[in-house]
């Protein structure tokens, strides 16, 4: 179970990126994306931005829930008031995703199904998943606010603070 989290600015520019694995069920917190997933993740999240633009005027909630799905990847979005997007991509079994054969449905893999049944991404629209992601997003939102409260931070600046990264990692460990 691996996650890729990124913050997208108001001009669809990335401000922050991090990937991590789950800490639940004895996970070690290390993302297990394959090499090609490194850029595919960015690509999938970028594609999901269109869905965010559609969803953002439909409701008032900051948390937009799951906005997009591509094969095994599920993208959840949290939209701040200032139109900055927190995008979380989750993939229950990244080693099994083959991006090259995207025309065919992903093969069912009984060997991993047993293990991932209790994982969050196994049923991405379930209430438990949405709740966990919402909690995670709210915690990141708090850190994000503290970051932009810095008078020297200007809109769409890249976030480089190691403390911010630490806060995101802590929130991930706590909820995901």
């Amino acid at each position, binding site marked *: 179970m691996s996650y890729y989290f990124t913050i997208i600015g108001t001009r669809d520019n990335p401000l922050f990126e991090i990937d991590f694995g789950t800490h639940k069920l004895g996970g070690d917190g290390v993302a297990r994306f394959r090499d090609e997933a490194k850029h595919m993740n960015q690509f999938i999240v970028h594609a999901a931005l269109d869905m965010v633009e559609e969803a953002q005027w439909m409701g*008032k*909630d900051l948390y937009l829930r799951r906005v997009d799905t591509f094969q095994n990847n599920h993208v959840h979005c949290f939209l701040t*008031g200032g*139109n900055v997007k927190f995008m979380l991509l989750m993939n229950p079994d990244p080693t099994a995703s083959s991006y090259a054969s995207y025309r065919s449905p992903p093969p069912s893999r009984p060997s991993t199904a047993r293990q991932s049944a209790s994982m969050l991404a196994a049923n991405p629209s379930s209430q438990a998943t949405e709740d966990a992601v919402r909690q995670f997003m709210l915690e990141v939102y708090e850190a994000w606010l503290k970051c932009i*409260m810095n008078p020297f931070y200007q809109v769409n600046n890249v976030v480089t603070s190691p*403390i911010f990264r630490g*806060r995101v990692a802590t929130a991930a460990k706590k909820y995901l």
Partner: protein
Amino acid sequence: MPDLNPAQEPPLPSKDTTSIPLPPPKQFVPSLRYPSNRKSIYDRNLNRTKTSDISLASFAYLFNALITYHHAQSGSVSEIENRLNRAGYPIGIKLLDLLLYRQVAAQSSSSRNTAARPTRMIDLLQFIQGTLWRALFNRPADALEQSTTKKNEYMIIDNEPVVNTFISIPKEMSQLNCAAFVAGIIEGVCDAAGFSTDGVSAHWAGEGDEMWPGKTIYLLRFRESVIEREEALKAGG
């Protein structure tokens, strides 16, 4: 020629003064610096406490310094207003998120996450008139009106702007309204929320008004695209 720096070591390989030796690589020093109590900006509380209000005197002093600076830098009334507007703009962008967060924090105890992004124009205007004004000045703005002639123009009216309390305008600049700073904040909020404007400006409206001689109108001019989206949303339910 005597060696000016005999203690220097290691000795230069040659006395050729045209080739300047490269300085030794500096040791890596993390650029993040902590204050002495090791608390960073991430350790501060985002919620307002009773003691966090700033006194009017210190605000007036800072605001005065801001105006004096921009006055000295610019040649015309409109340029001063423009500069004050730019000074307020980033504040507005950041305030929108901060106020939304405080809504979550204030209401999370009773119901789960009820903060609402303003998605309709009326929500946004009420947010500015109510929430924003209360956060900045501790009271809602006095009136909110739509222009009778133009669909995209709205007016927020403040009978007695706090920012103008200690400002006296010289005669030759009677058009200048330093509440342009607040107009900039409003513009920042609108832009950040996705309601782009053709500018928000502050105008005097208190002439001949005995009750409120300092009355100020903030004029919000939204872009056509915003109006179109608003109508599409209305039609779509």
